[in-house]
């Protein structure tokens, strides 16, 4: 083996080492810039509770239709009128949805405004209901007052 100190050959190896290290530094700088770009835009897309609000609306609409069908069928065997049954059922839906969202740290309030029937037979059937939907997750406040829901298919 030759002496480590006196052997001055191998300039090309040393030089190529330098070149490779420079390339690596350049790549690291580029990768860091790519990390920096697009943080806020993607974060905004993630943080805005678009799906939650949409889901709340859809659930309320679906449930209003189901509750209408239910109250019509309960009315067959009950003394209470359709609107009264509807109101009771809707109140319990409102209660449940409030609790479900509270688990995720969101305040939700769904309340019934009015029950409408176009042909006047108000006690026997329901066409449209109006509800207030409120949603708040601390950062985003949403209120639809009133949201009109067509319950007759």
């Amino acid at each position, binding site marked *: 083996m030759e002496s480590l100190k006196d052997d001055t050959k191998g300039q090309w190896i040393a030089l190529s080492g330098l070149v490779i290290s420079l390339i690596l530094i350049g790549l690291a700088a580029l990768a860091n810039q790519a990390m920096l*770009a697009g943080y806020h835009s993607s974060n905004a897309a993630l943080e805005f509770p*678009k799906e939650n609000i949409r889901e709340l609306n859809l659930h309320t609409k679906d449930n209003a239709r189901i509750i209408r069908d239910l109250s019509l069928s309960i009315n067959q065997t009950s003394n209470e009128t359709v609107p009264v049954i509807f109101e009771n059922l809707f109140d319990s839906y409102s209660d449940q949805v409030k609790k479900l969202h509270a688990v995720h740290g969101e305040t939700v309030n769904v309340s019934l405004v009015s029950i409408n029937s176009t042909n006047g037979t108000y006690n026997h059937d329901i066409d449209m209901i109006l509800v207030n*939907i409120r949603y708040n997750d601390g950062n985003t406040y949403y209120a*639809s007052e009133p949201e009109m829901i067509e319950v007759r298919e």
Partner: protein
Amino acid sequence: MKNLFKDEKGASLLFEYILVTLICIGFFMTVTLNSNEIFIKTPNEAVMQDEMSDVGNMMSTMITDMYLVLPPNGNIDTGYRIPEKVGRENYVINANIAYTNQIIEVISASSGKNVRVTIGGIARTMPINGTASSSSTQHVISYDSTR
């Protein structure tokens, strides 16, 4: 060819030293004079371009998202957070020209740099206006169907 690296004729040692020294001095002078430009301004510019278009895209994303869930009657407010400074400068988000140009501007007042982001024609169906300064503590986008 074989002697290319061993051939030391053509320049005396002294002359070679002088040449190399002069070149070094010239190089270092250029670097020193332009160091602010090279090491501070250029990276700052790149960072600002990136961050400002990022913030602009964020506004565009939020407005589009809000537009998708707007209630027919009612209102919606959403707060958002943006960095107080990009690079080393404060900036202003300006949406007042959205109605005519369909763009949102992010402007830095001190350097005059501005980045424009499109909002995909939403402003044509719904007026968008307002400005937000990066140094204020709270930022809100709000919509009200009754206005």
